[in-house]
């Protein structure tokens, strides 16, 4: 902690369900409005580290085996990965609250 931006976005992308590499990239591009497009080296370098730290695992199950290429590998967030992601989100939200109190960014309308 804090997590690297690429790692944070990958964990965030996997929080909705299992994804393969290209799916992770699409998800990250979508939730950052296209601002972050992960390259292959960044993506698979991060995946390698996340696997070794047991934040994610490779899974054999596929969302739709009929439509999917069986050579693709899918990744899933582990319980530990989920805990790390939640802790990071809480850390960021605390920083955002501080920034809101200091009127650096507007408070969300309730």
């Amino acid at each position, binding site marked *: 902690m804090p997590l690297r931006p690429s790692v944070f976005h990958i964990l965030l992308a996997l929080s909705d369900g299992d994804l393969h*590499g*290209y799916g992770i*990239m699409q998800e990250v591009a979508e939730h950052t409005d296209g601002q972050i*497009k992960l*390259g*292959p*080296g*960044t*993506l*698979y*370098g991060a*995946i*390698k580290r996340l696997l070794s730290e047991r934040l994610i695992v490779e899974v054999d199950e596929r969302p739709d085996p009929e439509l999917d*290429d069986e*050579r*693709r*590998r899918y990744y899933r967030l582990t319980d530990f990965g989920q805990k790390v992601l939640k802790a990071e989100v809480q850390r960021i939200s605390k920083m955002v609250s501080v920034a809101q109190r200091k009127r650096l960014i507007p408070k969300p309308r309730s």
Partner: protein
Amino acid sequence: MNMPPQRLFQIVLFAYPRDFRRDYGQQMEQFFRDCYRAERVTRGRLGLGGLWVRTLLDLARTAPREHLETLRKDNAIMKNPGKNALAFLGSIVLIVVAFLLLSYGKKHEISTILIFGRILDAGMTAGIVGNLIIFLLITITRLNPLRIALWTLLVVHGALLLVTIVVGSKVDPAFSLSGVLLGYIVSFLFWFSLHWIWSKAIGPLAVSHES
């Protein structure tokens, strides 16, 4: 020659370490294929140009990092930076003490110290050159460090001895072949013993890379 983009990307992948390519190469190819297809359909040539730029910039940023990680994982040198820094400092102290001792002997004409002058000359020259080469070879290859040390020290001592014999006999009227020969033999034994002790002290890590 018009090379297909997939083939070009396979060549690009060679910038990454072998183990990384083995584990993720196929997935990265599939990833690039998907990106290429999507860019061609949605943005055409401009999109494909952008994809190549992004891919190459990503490669420039991530390939060195993967190599560095592989080196850290594979080499005892990189795993024990504290011990190695201490050994390096120790070697410098040894050289400085030897140099001061030799200067003192020359200044006060103490023959017992001067006898070791040639050994110290050989030891310092071969030690600096040899250990630098050994350090580099251990860092970039997976060969047995003790074997690297043996062959490097043999070659460096042999080459320096040859140069000293050829040049020394022409420039120094008091040149002594037996003195120089003795100096290089003792220097070789000293440095090789040091590497042998070092490999024993570090344990199997230092000699585990040979496949």
